[in-house]
Each structure stands twice: as structure tokens, then as C-alpha cells.
């Protein structure tokens, strides 16, 4: 039986983890390889690197980090941030990424998703959807796509966009609520559910986890196939094992053999 995945997400800048990882006795909390190894040992099902490096010129350090991580951890790695061309995807895959997450480029040029899927297969093309609720109280729920870390509105309806990129070959959607990101008040379940019900590909819930019940709700109520979280793991509030045990106790199918 296929299991629900838990995916810790690391923000990487210039090849270093920022927004520190403060759990366990890492020799170097800024080294993505150290953090990845710790999550590998902790039973994470996948790992996500989000490259927030400002300039494209610093990609070399990211590629080095991806390559060293892939050498040390035998679990799937998704890398996102600043991917604009088929050559960018190829370079990351050759460095050791298993999947790439595309955000702004998918908004600017949806056919880029199709080109990536045709070249590398849908299974490695993740489209990251950053959405904000635009409906008022009492109105039917609606969300709009934002880019550039939630700063730039696009006017695109999130559900329609999700359907459109899936039709073009996206193999997975990483759905982040910009309203909830960093708020620790739980995922936007209505958003997660609306997108998961609208598409045939797996959805990863993201943005806003404050506790373990939020992970359960993302899957049970939001119908996500995987849950992504950062701070609850980074700061040692919970271990991945605790999260899995909690989700299993709630009746979700989890991989407990790691």
C-alpha cells in the first residue's frame, strides 16, 4: 500500500541552509548535507531544497550541495527555485535531484511545463502553486496565484491554474497557502482540498503547519498525498518519527520501517 509522505523542506541560499536547522547535534547546521543526513536517518520520506539564492550566478554552490546530498542520502530529493529552462532542469537532475519544482516559470510560460515533462517525464516535474485567498467572508472560496514569494499577484485563479499545468504534464503540485505560510495555524485545508479534488496528480500540502494535527488534517481533510513542513522539524519541536506515529495513530498509512 502506498504511504503518505512527510517532506521536510530546507531553504537554501548560496548553498547553505538558512532559517537554521537547530535540531540534534549537527556539526554544521548550515550545511545542507548535514541536515539532509539527519532527516534521512530520522525517516523522512523525501527531502525538498528550496533555493532562495538571489542571483543566478550562485547556482554552482546549489549544484554542489545537491550533488553532495545525493551522494550521502538514498532518498528522493526535490529542488526548487529559479528554474527557467530545460537546461536548468537537466543540470539539477544530473547533480542528483530527482524532481524539480517550478514556480514563476510555469506562470510566465505554461508550455515550459510541457517541454520539461516531454523531456524528463511528468514524474519529475513538480509545479509549485503559491496561492492567496481572494474571496471575502460569505463569498464562494477563491484563491489567486502569486509569484516571487507571494509579492506579485498574477490574476490567475489557483484551481484553474492547477488544472492547466496538470494538463500540460505536471506530475505533482506543491500547494502553498501564502496566507498561512509561517503562521503556524495549519494548512489552508479548503485550498488543499479544492486543488486535490480538481486534479489527478498528487498534491503536497504546504504552508502553516503548527502542530502534528495539522499534518493529519492536510491528508485526511485536504486529501493531500504528502505533507511538507519546515519549522516544526527544524527547531526540534517534533521529530519526523513523532509525526509519523501521530499520523499512523490517526489512521493514515505511514512508512514506519525507516
Amino acid at each position, binding site marked *: 500500500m502506498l504511504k503518505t509522505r512527510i517532506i521536510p523542506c530546507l531553504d537554501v541560499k548560496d548553498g547553505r541552509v538558512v532559517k537554521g536547522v537547530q535540531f540534534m547535534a549537527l556539526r554544521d547546521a548550515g550545511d545542507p548535507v548535514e541536515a539532509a543526513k539527519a532527516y534521512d536517518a530520522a525517516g523522512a520520506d523525501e527531502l525538498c531544497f528550496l533555493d532562495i539564492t538571489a542571483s543566478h550566478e550562485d547556482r554552482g554552490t546549489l549544484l554542489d550541495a545537491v550533488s553532495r546530498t545525493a551522494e550521502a542520502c538514498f532518498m528522493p530529493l526535490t529542488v526548487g527555485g529559479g528554474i527557467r529552462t530545460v537546461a536548468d532542469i537537466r543540470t539539477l537532475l544530473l547533480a542528483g535531484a530527482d524532481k524539480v519544482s517550478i514556480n514563476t516559470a510555469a506562470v510566465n510560460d505554461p508550455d515550459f511545463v510541457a517541454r520539461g515533462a516531454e*523531456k*524528463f517525464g511528468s514524474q519529475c516535474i513538480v509545479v509549485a502553486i503559491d496561492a492567496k485567498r481572494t474571496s471575502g467572508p460569505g463569498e464562494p472560496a477563491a484563491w489567486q496565484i502569486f509569484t516571487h514569494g507571494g509579492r506579485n499577484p498574477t490574476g490567475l485563479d489557483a484551481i484553474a491554474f492547477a488544472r492547466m499545468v496538470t494538463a500540460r504534464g505536471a506530475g*505533482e503540485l506543491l500547494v502553498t497557502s501564502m496566507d498561512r505560510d509561517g503562521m503556524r495555524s495549519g494548512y489552508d485545508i479548503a485550498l488543499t482540498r479544492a486543488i486535490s479534488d480538481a486534479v489527478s496528480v498528487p498534491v503536497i500540502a504546504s504552508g502553516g503547519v503548527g502542530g502534528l494535527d495539522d499534518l493529519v488534517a492536510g491528508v485526511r481533510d485536504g486529501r493531500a498525498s504528502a505533507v511538507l513542513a519546515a519549522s516544526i522539524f527544524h527547531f526540534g519541536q517534533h521529530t519526523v518519527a513523532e509525526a509519523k506515529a501521530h499520523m499512523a495513530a490517526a489512521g493514515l498509512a505511514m512508512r514506519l520501517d*525507516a
Partner: protein
Amino acid sequence: MNGQTVAIIDYGSGNLHSAAKAFERAAREAGLDSTRILLTDDADVVANADRVVLPGVGAYADCRRGLDAVSGMVEAMAHTAHSRSRPFLGICVGMQLLATRGLEYAATPGLDWIAGDVGPIVPSNPALKVPHMGWNTLDVDRDHALLADIPLGPDGLHAYFVHSFALTPRDPADRVAHSDYGGPVTAMVARNNIAGTQFHPEKSQRLGLAFIANFLRWRP
């Protein structure tokens, strides 16, 4: 098996570096220290290797084009697998390429070493998402040396899958293991000295390292 060489074929497809690292680690942990893992696009190296691995990440047609673009490689693979009867392992699309043809985007001829088509996964339960992505358990159809001493079945270890298409062997005896995903999805095939996995042993942690170690010791 002292001094054996394992050729992992580099044909421009996906993440070969981590595959090589997983094989190196499995060899070390299995005490096969003198095993040499060669990441290669040289047909001569493959023609002379003791074991051959065909990895693969990507779209079927694109992978087939990439393989054909390496001069003499398909012939070298056939030489080692068929004339020399050496252990051969295909992984993911590398396994799918062993089939008669792939149906992703356009119908594309495979190597036809294991008869069958690679078609889209259609789960009986429409709520199940495609790609089949993540960790699943394996159900064994028949015993196989590559699965020896690995806890399998619903309470066994997990393997990592990420695919939208699956190989259905024409001869059911070629299917060694499957996973349940709204019906059986082929997880492993084998015929004589040729084997293939839909899952990624190089990404499958404990199960994967044990599987690779079995491959490095396999005497079909």
C-alpha cells in the same frame, strides 16, 4: 566476485551519480570491497563488464533516443547480457526499456528482452493519483535471488516508486513482484540473467541497499 566490474550505463538519462554512490555503498556494506563501479558511456566497458546496470529517469522515447545515440551501446548490452549471460539490471525507465515497446507520448520500440508493453497506470479507484509516487510495499509473485532476505509483503520494507507508466509482461512468469495501487503494478521483472525494477533501489534506503547487495552477489 573479487575484482568484479559493474558498469552503470551513462546515456544522458537522469541521476546516475547517486545510483553509482548507492552501488558503492552497498558493495562496501556487503563486504565486496574490490567491486569496481564504473559509470560509463563506453560500449567497450559495458561489453567487458561482469554486471551491467541500465538506469533511467525521464520519458520513454527520450531515453530510447539517448541510448541509441551512444555508439555501439545497445549491441554491447546485448553482448554482455545474452552472449556472455552476465547479470543485467534495468531500473525504472531502464527496466521499461527491456520491454517490447513503450506507449508514453508516442509508441516507441524497446529492446524486447522481456516481452510486453509499457502502458499508462489506470488505478481501479479513480481517487488514486497518478503518478504512483512514493513508498509502497512489494508483494512477491515468485521467489527470486535478488529479493533474498528482504522482508516483503504488507508489513515488509518499502520501495520508492515514481512513475506514470508500468510494464505488463506478456508472460506472467516474468513478473517477480508487484505493488498494489488500485490493482497490481509491476514492481520487478526477471527472465534468466536479466532483471528490472520499476522502483528505485538507489533511493529505497534499507530495502534498496539490500537489493543492490543481492544483485552484486547474484549468480543467475
